[in-house]
Structure formats: C-alpha cells, structure tokens
C-alpha cells in the first residue's frame, strides 16, 4: 500500500542533511515570497538576508492581522450585532465611532491585573501568549496575493492546521492553571470539541488535496485558477467550493467548531460556565485571549479562502483585497451565526462531531477518491 517502503536498490548518501529525495524541495517555492522580495529590495543575500527579510515580512503580516483584529473586535463586532438586533452601536467617538478602538485598547491595557489565589504560574501567564501565537503562526503560509506570502513550504496547508491547533494547548493551560472549576470545565470542553472536529476538518481538507495533489498553498491556489465552465462568456474558475460543495459546507461547519464560534462556542458559553477558560483573566491577559480568538477567526477564513475560494483570485481588484474580502466574509458569517443560531449542548456537540461530521467527512473523502479515480 505504501509506495515508499517499496523503493529498493542500494541507497547512496547525498552528503548533507538538508537534501531530500523530493525534487521540489529546492530552496524556495515556485512563487517569490515576501521575505525574498524584501531582501532583494534591500540588496541583502545569504542567511543574513533571509533573517532580516523574514523578520520584516513577519512584522508586516502580524501587523496586518492586528489591524484587522482591532477593527473587527471592538468595532465591527458591535456594529454587526447591533445591526442584527436592530440597534445603533458605538457612534460617539470618531467617524462611525471608529475611535472606540483606541479607547478600548487604552482602557483594557490600563486595567488592573487580578491574580486569583492558587493559580498555577507560570502556566497561567504563558497561556495568553500561546493563543495569538498559534493563530499568527498559521498565517505564515497563507498567500495573501500580490506577493504578500511570508513562506511557501511544501507542507504549507498541513503546517497551517498544525499551527492552528496549538491553540488548544493554551486553552488547557489557561483552564487548568487558573484554579477555577468553570475554567477547568471550559478547558475540557474546548479540548473535547477540538478533538471531535479536528478530524472532520483535516479529512475534508484531504478530499481537496486529492484534487490539488499538493500541500503547497500557492499551488493549491494556482490549481483553482483554471476554468471550470464558461457560462455566457463568463469563465467560472474551478474553485473547489464549486467543484466539491459538499466538502465546502462540511469544512465551514468544522471550522466554526474548531475556532469555537456559535453554534459551537461551548468552551466559553457565557450562560453556562461564566466565561469558560478565561473566567479568571483580566486586563491585558484578557485582551490577548480576545485577540487570539479573532485572529483565529480570520485564520479560519483564510484557510477556507485558500482551500475552497481560490485564495486571492478574483476579477478587477488586486489579490490582497480579494483575500481580505473573503476573510471578512467569513467573519461576517460567524457574527451572523452568533446572533442567529442557538448554541448546542455539549452532548449534542460530541454526538454531532463523532456520529455526524466524522462519518460524513469520511464518506466525502471516499466519494471524492472514487470519482477522481473513475474520471481521471
């Protein structure tokens, strides 16, 4: 079954430890990544150039995400919720109340940090760092279009999943360390949920990989550009959302659970377990959790965009804009679900995950494989 074990013929050493048999494992991917552009512009070469370029690029990407989060968290979220509930949200400070962002930032940062009794430090302090860290790390391989891609390793999409799921470690640390029953419950719930929906997520992604035949995000995106059908002169690109809508739906659902949004926000169900794992957090630590969650939402959006919506591809506007639009669309969707859909119970969640999603995703995988096999 596994072709690799079959390979025979006496092997010979290729000298250094960084060469792999796979020919595509050359220094960089097919696209020129952001650090390369930067180091090229600065005229730097070699490892030093890589490091400088990488740092600058990383800072850029991180700040883009921070900016979007800052926009989304304090302002957009309120506005959207208000719109759904037919209210007018923040509108005093600045145009459309946009300056509330600054105000909130200052307010939260200057709050007192209350450290409850018997918290398990330093775990309690590290947890808030891990959440945004994992979310940001996920963006390293996301092609924003317009050359805005930090790195393009051949394991891109898998890396994104891996980075994204580091978050649960942070959640458990937070819940276990803060010496609070609600926090512990929240942490456990979040773990149970991530476990239950990780597999459907990954398996569904795998069903897309079957089409693309690569993990490299840029190539996945490129694979979606060729035309699927041409209706009335308009070429519909072969986005996998069109090719495999079933997987698309599954993926969105699993993704919602993975990032813990409604209807799957039971880790921090405010009406059941005060605020879940972040009950005991205040001040900047709370900010970091909040930040992390929102970056996660955007990461989920970015993954959906890359896997199903052709990434940055789109008519007229530059790629980066399209990418941002797609990510925001997903954000909008989560907020809509937040206001519209009731939360599931924990047992319902588990049963949906293991008895529904898992089976469906495997069915999807098998079906896709069979179809591809029959067609190709």
């Amino acid at each position: 079954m596994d072709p690799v074990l079959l390979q025979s013929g006496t092997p010979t050493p290729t000298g250094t430890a960084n060469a792999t048999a796979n020919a595509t494992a050359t220094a960089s991917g097919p696209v020129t990544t952001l650090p390369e552009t930067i180091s090229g512009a600065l005229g730097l070469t070699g490892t030093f150039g890589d490091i400088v370029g990488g740092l600058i690029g990383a800072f850029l990407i991180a700040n883009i995400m921070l900016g979007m989060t800052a926009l989304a968290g304090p302002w957009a979220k309120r506005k959207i919720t208000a719109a759904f509930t037919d209210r007018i949200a923040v509108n005093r400070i600045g145009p459309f109340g946009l300056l509330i962002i600054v105000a909130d930032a200052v307010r939260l940062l200057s709050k007192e940090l209350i450290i409850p009794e018997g918290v398990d430090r330093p775990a309690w302090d590290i947890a808030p760092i891990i959440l945004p860290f994992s979310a940001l790390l996920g963006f390293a391989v996301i092609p924003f279009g317009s050359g805005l891609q930090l790195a393009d390793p051949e394991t891109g999409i898998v890396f994104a999943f891996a980075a994204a799921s580091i978050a649960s470690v942070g959640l458990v640390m937070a819940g276990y360390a803060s010496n609070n029953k609600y926090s512990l419950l929240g942490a456990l719930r979040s773990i149970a949920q991530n476990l239950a929906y990780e597999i459907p997520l990954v398996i569904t992604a795998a069903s897309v990989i079957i089409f693309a035949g690569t993990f490299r995000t840029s190539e996945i995106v490129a694979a979606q550009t060729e035309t699927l059908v041409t209706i009335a002169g308009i070429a519909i690109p072969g986005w996998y959302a069109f090719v495999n809508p079933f997987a698309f739906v599954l993926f969105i659902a699993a993704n919602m659970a993975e990032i813990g949004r409604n209807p799957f926000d039971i880790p921090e169900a405010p009406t059941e377990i005060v605020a879940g794992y972040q009950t005991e957090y205040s001040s900047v630590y709370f900010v970091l959790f909040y930040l992390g969650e929102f970056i996660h939402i955007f990461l989920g959006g970015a993954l959906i965009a890359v896997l199903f919506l052709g990434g940055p591809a789109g008519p007229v506007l530059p790629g980066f804009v399209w990418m941002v639009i797609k990510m925001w669309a997903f954000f909008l969707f989560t907020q809509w679900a937040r206001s519209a859909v009731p939360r599931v119970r924990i047992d319902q969640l588990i049963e949906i995950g293991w008895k529904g999603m898992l089976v469906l995703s495997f069915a999807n995988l098998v079906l896709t494989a069979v179809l591809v096999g029959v067609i190709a």
Partner: protein
Amino acid sequence: MVPVQWYLLLAAAVFCIGLFGILTRQNALLFLMSVELMLNAANINLVAFSAYWGNVTGQTFSLFTMALAAAEVAVGIGIILVLYRNFGDVDVTLAKEMRW
C-alpha cells in the same frame, strides 16, 4: 549544512533523557512521556538519515512510529486508569501484589 553526526548526538541525548526519566520517575504518566521521548529520538534519527541517504524510507517509517506510539499511549493510559481504580494512585511502585 549541518553534518549528520550532530543529529545522531541529538537523538542519543533525547534517548538518554527519556531513559533517565524512566529510571527515576515513579509516576506512570511521566513514565509514558519518557517512553515517548525515546521513540521520538528514534524519529529524529530516521528523518535525519532519510535526508542523508536521499530516500524517504526513514520519513515514512517515522510516520508509522508515531502512529504506534499513539496507540501505545492509548493502551497505556487505559491500563493506568485501571491501575488508578485498583490501587488509588498512578505510582508504578505501588503495585506490589506479586514480587518481582
């Protein structure tokens, strides 16, 4: 870039750390973690040398190793659970019904 011997040293170091953990710890869970360390030392070797030899045999086998490690942990945790139920602790030295 990095000469392959260093990977051997790294793997050996990780392996010895795991071994040390096994020899010194009495908590069954820490014991499990140490075993995982030892297995991962093996993985380091496999991956490094699959790059060195230019075939992917080692990488693939490391995948299998991970899978087996996971299964082992699953069984192990189960046994430790019944251990806890019967002896009220996860201290491996507590089980003394029979002499060694």
